[in-house]
């Protein structure tokens, strides 16, 4: 019996998508390091972490939605709305405080998310249609009501710049240049852990798995479906708000047409991480690895001197290959796909 359980654990590990993704990431990283030893340097890794935070935070939001069997494509519009409104408010009011920026951006995020949540839980609109609609509405409203002017580096309040260059610790290279670990990475890690805790240890989190697994069963088990759905979309909005502020702090430039249009690559990262698009299955670790893979691809192509046009091609190939491996795995275990479903 003991041995059985151990065997089972190993078997399950071998079935896990994450393991294969991890192997792919490690092999690819070794390959790139062979071409350009700089890739594996601590400095570059810190850099990778910093530049993946925006995508990572949004990906965690998308992960939660996919888990529940829904999809959200309005989160980029929400992120840019939060960012642009917060930045403009800080400029207009002259208050130079990053916490206020977060507060405004996240509030905008939660309010817009609540609109999604309301439409979906109250009127049972399919999530794709609802968020496709609100995505245009949110972005259109932002451009017509708040404005279309870009915020250049000179106009940008200092708090964003300070936040963007804040490192939690710094190291010195032999040639005297400093580098450090950005606060973005810490924010990302905290969000990942918080989300993991919610999903694993709260009834709300289990409810998200439940409705993603079988919504009818969830109704019969008396889960409060509208409440859970409402929470999910508010939470995505909240995370989008955070991502919005980090984004502008990173590039030190605000443009209300940025971010929107990236939603598919974020969703791709989550799916690459093993989350089933049909809901119910997926892990935070997988999601983080999916984001890591795509960020590494981006970064490495530049390091080895390939143009960024290659990026899309590579991302597509990696997704197809990694998802194929998992499906093949499933198929191998006795008639799994057809006969055990």
């Amino acid at each position, binding site marked *: 019996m003991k041995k059985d359980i151990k065997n089972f654990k190993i078997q399950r590990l071998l079935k896990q998508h994450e393991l294969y993704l991890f192997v792919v990431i490690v092999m690819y990283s070794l390959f790139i390091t062979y071409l350009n030893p700089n890739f594996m340097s601590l400095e570059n890794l810190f850099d990778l972490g910093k530049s993946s935070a925006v995508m990572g935070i949004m990906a965690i939001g998308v992960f939660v939605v996919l888990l529940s069997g829904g999809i959200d494509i309005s989160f980029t519009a929400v992120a840019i709305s939060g960012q642009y409104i917060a930045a403009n408010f800080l400029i207009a009011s002259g208050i130079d405080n990053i916490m206020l920026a977060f507060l405004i951006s996240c509030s905008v995020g939660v309010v817009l998310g609540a609109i999604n949540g309301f439409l979906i839980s109250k009127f049972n609109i399919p999530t794709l249609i609802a968020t496709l609609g609100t995505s245009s509405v949110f972005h259109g409203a932002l451009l017509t009501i708040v404005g279309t002017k870009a915020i250049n580096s000179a106009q940008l309040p200092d708090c964003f710049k300070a936040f963007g260059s804040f490192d939690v610790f710094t190291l010195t290279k032999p040639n005297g240049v400093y580098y450090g670990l950005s606060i973005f990475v810490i924010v990302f890690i905290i969000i990942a852990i918080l989300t993991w805790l919610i999903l694993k240890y709260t009834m709300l989190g289990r409810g998200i798995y439940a409705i993603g697994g079988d919504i009818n069963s969830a109704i019969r088990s008396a889960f409060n479906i509208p409440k859970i759905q409402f929470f999910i979309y508010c939470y995505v909005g909240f995370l989008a708000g955070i991502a919005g502020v980090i984004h502008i702090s990173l590039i030190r430039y605000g443009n209300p047409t940025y971010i929107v249009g990236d939603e598919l690559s974020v969703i791709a990262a989550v799916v690459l991480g093993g989350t089933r698009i049909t809901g*119910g299955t997926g892990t935070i670790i997988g999601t983080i690895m999916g984001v890591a893979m795509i960020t590494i691809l981006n970064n490495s192509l530049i390091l080895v001197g390939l143009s960024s046009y290659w990026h899309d091609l590579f991302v597509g190939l990696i997704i197809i290959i990694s998802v194929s491996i998992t499906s093949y795995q499933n198929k191998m275990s006795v008639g799994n796909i057809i006969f055990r479903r």
Partner: protein
Amino acid sequence: MPENSEKFLEVKNVSKSYVGVQALDKVSLSIHKGEIDCLVGENGSGKSTLIKIIAGVVQPDEGEIIINGKSFKKLHAIDSIREGIQVIYQDLSLFPNMTIAENISLNQMVERKRKIISWHEINDIAEKEISRINKELNLEEKVENISIANKQLVAICRALTQDAKLIIMDEPTTAIAKKEIDFLFSVITDLKKRGISTLFVSHKLSEVLKISEKVTVIRDGKLVGVYNTKDLNHDKLSFYMSGRKITNSAFNYQKEKLEPKKPLLEVKDLSKKGNFQDISFKVYSGEIIGITGILGSGRTELALALFGLNKPDSGNIYIDGKLANIKYPKDAIDLGLSYLPEDRLNQGLFIKKSIGNNIVVTVLKSLLSRFNLINNNNKYKSAKEWTEELNVLAPSLDTSAQSLSGGNQQRIVIAKWLATNPKIFILDGPTVGIDVASKSNIHHIIRNLANRGMGVIIISDEIQEILNNCNRLIVIKEGRMVKEMDTNEVSEDKLLEILSRKIV
């Protein structure tokens, strides 16, 4: 009937209609504390609908529900659960993406309004319940990966863990083995002693007669009557259910008429490690072969192997005397094999698609018009033919398979495979969950197919079904063939004895 004890549940004049069907028409039902009741009726008569209304997941158009003396105008799922009603649904309503442990324990956490989850507690609850049924299940396994029988056990365990006052079971025994059914019945009797009531739904009338004290019969959504079990027998009960007499006769293999020389199907020394070993048998045209053996004996695995879904390690399959190379179901279908799977809801239906589309999905090629498009007229004709032959109760061919009653869904799957007009038809549990009248109907159809020259294999636990409908039978135990004989050489008791005998 314990007239003196209090009523726990009373349903008064409940009606419910769906588009095109009156599922329930002024039905009443009452259950006393500590009483074991059965609800019977043909497929589509409204049993599951009534149960869903009691569970608060479907709202009736009219009528009243009184639980524990409290009258509910609008009953929500959570009210029903809080009042102590637990339901094992016909489709089980489990969470495929969660582990066995969580499936068993989670509902209880919801009911207790837990905010935070303790995984210790989840495992403890599940472990305790599983150990009670003396079954080794890996609690960490996801439910999507377990067999239908184990799913049924998980659903039963889930209902038992909660402090229920009434447990409703909608056909809980279609897939589980005798040992587990016995366990379930002992639990039900125990519950009764503790004052807990049970409402049991089953098409296996022997079970109904064995366990219940009182039987409520419905037909076409209307109440037929409420009877004391001691006044009933098999024939009376099936008469109340269907409104007609059902007779059974034995199948007569027309060997002389068909004069088969070569076997249609020959299986030689087929083995797969851990599944089955050295299986050899032949099926001739016009024969109906029964394969029986307790659950987990490897019979389903064998059927899957014949159909290209479970690759054997060694051995050969011959069809019409030619060595067959069956790698995928498609190869099997091309060679004239069809397979009616055991777990029909998950394996046999596109639940959201229409009935018509479900039936013709196996024969799409034959429906193509000159332009390689699907000819709708042909489609309807083919689908209509089969729904009529199998008496499928549905408002139209365009309604989704989801809205059918459990038994009618089963028929759609049978229709879909019959439409392929196979030479060899393997049916795994052809009549589980099908009412007595339709059962004999389906048996009749199978015999006709055999008389027209088809070779049929029936896999079943139901001894009566095997003895009545097959000319030859094979007993499988722990993956090995222990007996092959003509059905007219063996009596029911003898077969039971062979089945329960330990192999040496």
